[in-house]
Structure formats: C-alpha cells, structure tokens
C-alpha cells in the first residue's frame, strides 16, 4: 500500500488535472521569483560586514509599495534593469544635508550613530543636499578610499526593493 503511494507520488499518472496543476505552480513560481522575490547573489565588499560577497538573498520588490525608503534601510538599486543591482544603505532622504568628517557621517549637521559600519574610515566630504525625489545611499564598508566606493544620491524610482534579510 505504502509502496504504491510512494510510486504514485514520484511517478504520478499524467492526467489533464495534473498538467494543469504543474502549469499553475510553474506560473506562480515564475511570477513570484521574477517580480516579487527576486533572487540575487552578492558580489563585492561594499556592504561588508552586513552583507558579504558570495551570500544569497532575495530582493523584496513590494517593500516600498506604501512607504518610501528611509535611514537606515538597506535597498537594492536598479541599474539598466534588474539583473545587476547595487546594494546600499540609505543614510538620508530628500532635503537633508549629508557630510563626512574624518569618517563620521553627519546628517543635517548631527553626527549619526552607525553600529553597522565596521572599521574606521578617513572620509572627509563637503556637505551635499539631497535633491527632491532622491535618497542618499552609501555602503557599510568604508575602509576603502571614498574615490573607490560607489555612493551618492539616487532617484527613488531606481530603488527596486530591499533584501529580504
């Protein structure tokens, strides 16, 4: 009896109903993993130690359906499409002024406590006001010189979502 059940499970009878079920599951998986939970692999150390190279995650695209990104959210930023995206942390929103003084982040002149940043950086950058409809993003790994680190302000519409964990 149990042998029969196992056999039925692994080698089911191909009926119209079974094919329909397989098609529905495949379509649901396609929609979910192409548009809602987009799987991605992290390459690069710009978000270390929070996210390290080689780790796997999902971009949850509905994260900002009702609210906008705000500090200290980690967001995925769309490039020309969604095959390659940037992973960065939001540190300021529109209208705020961002400045780095000897590695410390200042938003609107106030020093920001950043427990997620490891290692001391020496970044010193003049104040920049975030444009309307933009957010200011930066990686957690600031041990590299500022010239070699991708950061700055980006339009909100470029944000594809947020990592699931």
């Amino acid at each position, binding site marked *: 009896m149990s042998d029969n059940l196992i056999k039925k499970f692994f080698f089911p009878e191909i009926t119209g109903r079974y094919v329909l079920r397989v098609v529905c599951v495949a379509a649901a998986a396609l929609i979910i993993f192409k548009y809602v939970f987009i799987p991605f692999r992290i390459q*690069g150390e710009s978000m270390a130690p929070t996210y390290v190279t080689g780790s796997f995650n999902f971009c949850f695209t509905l994260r900002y359906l009702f609210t906008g990104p705000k500090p200290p959210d980690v967001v995925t*930023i769309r*490039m*020309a*499409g*969604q*095959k*390659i995206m*940037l992973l*960065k942390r939001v540190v300021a929103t529109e209208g705020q002024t961002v400045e780095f003084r000897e590695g410390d982040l200042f938003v609107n002149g106030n020093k920001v406590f950043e427990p997620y940043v490891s290692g001391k950086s020496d970044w010193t950058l003049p104040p*920049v006001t975030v444009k309307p409809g*933009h957010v200011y*993003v930066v990686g957690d790994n600031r041990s590299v010189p500022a010239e070699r680190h*991708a*950061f*700055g*302000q*980006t339009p909100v519409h*470029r944000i594809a979502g947020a990592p699931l964990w």
Partner: protein
Amino acid sequence: MVTKKYLAVGLIIVAVVAAFLFFFVDWEARAVKKHLQSLAKEMVWSPGESQITAVTRVKSVQDKIAEICQVNIPGYKISQTVSKNDVPTYLTMAKNYYKDFSVKFEDLKVESVQLPQAQAVTTAHVKATGIDGVRNDEVLVIEFNLQKVDQKWQITAAREVEVLEK
C-alpha cells in the same frame, strides 16, 4: 480528407506565426541588440591572446562604430570624440593598462528606434585586471546612440548614465 484537414490547420498555424513575427517582432531593435552584443564579445583580451586574434578584434570593433563617436564615460575618465581610425590606438592604450579585460552587457534594452537612429541602454559589467594584477571590476549603465548607415548599425555615441551622483 483527414490529411487535407491537418494540412489546412498546419498552414493556418504557419500563417499566424508568420503574421505574428511580421507585425509584432521589432527586427530593427533585434539588430541593434545583436550589434551591441557583438561589440561586447569583441571587447575582450587576455595575456595569451595571439596577434592575429587581437588584430581581428580591433578591426571588428572599428566596424561597429561610426566615423566619429562621442564617448563620455566618467567612470573610466573618458570624455572625448573618438574617430574610427583612432580605435586601434585607444585599444592598445587600454591593453597597456589592463592585462585582461572583458565586458558583458546585461539588461540590454532598445529604448527607441526611429530610423535611421536608435537608442539603447545597458548595464555594462566590466571585469578587468590591471597590469599590476589588481582586479578592477566595474558596473556601469551605458546609453548608446546608433545610426543606420548603408544597412548597417553604427555607434555614434556612448554615454555613462549616472546612477549614484556624488
């Protein structure tokens, strides 16, 4: 009788597919994509590459760009007008800087085709190793302008789109 019925159904299917391909597939956009993908395939070199392969690749890159091409890629500190004849010189300079190099165009989208011009945007994933052995991989959004001359697409401009403004 049955054979005729199947033949008629087959012909109708072929006609529908042909009509779909004719009316709904943008062949010019496909040609633009193919042109840019082939450019990416030619922008590759490695230390062991033979001289003949290198010359063939340079010639192929030359064929893909217009007589005058405006290149503006701040990520690589390039902002200048490049003439077709200068391509070998610039590629030689690049080879002196990077010992191996490859580029892959991801998310390549043709934004508009208004003959004889077209515009496309892509994420260029550049993998490069400097002469000093230091990896220098980059990801850039690049917008291309192309023009169709003598039934062939040619790149007239390549511009980096700023995703993060410092």
